[in-house]
């Protein structure tokens, strides 16, 4: 299987690569339209500012091959910013367009709590989740973000709470996305990646 990791320059690409290697999987890094078109499963990791990812999609001509691949039905996993960019737009850079695959906008978490939301937080399961299969209910995951999808529609399998409830695990047809960093979330995170690999196999 051609497992492809979209490398638009985000800092966490090597960590995701290492986490996949620990599970015996090898991902190819892709930063061109051609590599994405050949992919049989796609991972989009991201960390930092929303604008960096949204701009890279256009400047590196990744937007349309990415949308085509997802519409073709190949398994897709977005991580952190890779989740946020699936929506229409984000309050972090309102002038830039997301991929518009999911309805709604990404907003800032409430200022009643410390931001960034930094550290380990457990999830609240909303419905059966393929990504969370075999993960114990009280498991903690590592988050590092200030913006989140606050509208919990029926694509949300698990939410998390920091000042407000937000989408932590999304599964919609072939689209999977997590707001936490599975590559930094110990054994629980490894299990999530393993479940994705199983879906992609």
């Amino acid at each position, binding site marked *: 299987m051609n497992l492809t990791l979209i490398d638009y320059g985000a*800092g*966490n690409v*090597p*960590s995701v690569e*290492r*986490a996949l290697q*620990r599970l015996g999987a090898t991902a190819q890094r892709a930063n061109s339209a051609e590599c994405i078109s050949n992919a049989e499963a796609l991972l989009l990791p991201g*960390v*930092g*500012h929303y604008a960096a990812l949204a701009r890279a999609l256009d400047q590196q001509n990744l937007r349309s091959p990415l949308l085509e691949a997802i519409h073709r039905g190949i398994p897709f996993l977005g991580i952190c910013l890779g989740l946020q960019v699936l929506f229409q737009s984000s309050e972090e850079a309102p002038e830039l367009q997301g991929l518009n695959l999911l309805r709604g906008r990404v907003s800032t978490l409430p*200022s009643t709590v*410390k*931001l*960034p*939301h*930094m*550290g*380990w*937080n*457990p999830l*609240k399961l909303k419905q059966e989740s393929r990504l969370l299969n075999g993960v*114990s209910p*009280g*498991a*903690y995951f*590592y988050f*590092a*973000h*200030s913006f989140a999808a606050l509208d919990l529609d029926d694509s949300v399998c698990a939410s998390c*709470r*920091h000042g407000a409830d937000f989408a932590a695990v999304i599964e919609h047809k072939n689209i999977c996305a997590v707001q936490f*960093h599975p*590559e*930094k*979330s*110990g*054994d629980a*995170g*490894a299990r999530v990646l393993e479940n994705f690999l199983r879906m992609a196999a």
Partner: protein
Amino acid sequence: MSLAHRIIPCLDTDGGRVVKGVNFVGLRDAGDPVALAARYNAEGADELVVLDIAASRDRRPTFLETIRRVAAELAIPLTAGGGIRTVEDGRAVVRAGADKITVNTAAVERPQLISELSREFGAQAVVLAIDAKRCGDHWDVMVCGGRESASLDALLWANMGVAAGAGEILLTSVDRDGTQIGFDVPLTSALSRAVTVPVIASGGAKLPEHFKEIFKEGAADAALAATIFHDGVQSIRALKEFLAANGIAVRLPC
């Protein structure tokens, strides 16, 4: 169920070895960073910090190699720092495998460094390390390994740093560092309540009660220690079990 209080072991390294000082002087060797990193990852540490205490240019490649080898052992976040003066320095440690960068003296000398790093890597990746020392009715920022006063109020500096784009504060009490008599509760509490970002308390930890106190009274979001973990005086697992039994939210590894 809520955001867990983090326990963070710190590896102070020099030339590829872990060292630890008492009151910032009297360095002694405490072991292999890679072996310690693997142990802490398995024991349930929530994060790991690796610092280059000498931070000299000619030893930079050794430090980057240490980060690479340590990162390979971890399934938890890694913060690295010591001698970061430019975005390029930051990029080198991020490429080597760090998730976050700490800056200290260089940011006091040139505060724009914080905004430059924040723009490049995001606020969640920029940790402002502040070494603070009691001075009358306030705390002074200390620089150059805690030896010199910057004549700058620590709370004011923390807020300036956050405004510039720091996403977290690593607060070390120079008065408590290495003493093992407990964290500096008044300092941590005052600073943590004054800023909008998470605060990591550091300096003075020995007993599980010290951690309980810094989370409950000190309003710390995370607590960092070195020697007590390296020496095996305190296991991370036992510490977390103690905190959980005392009603403090922690991540208990399975």
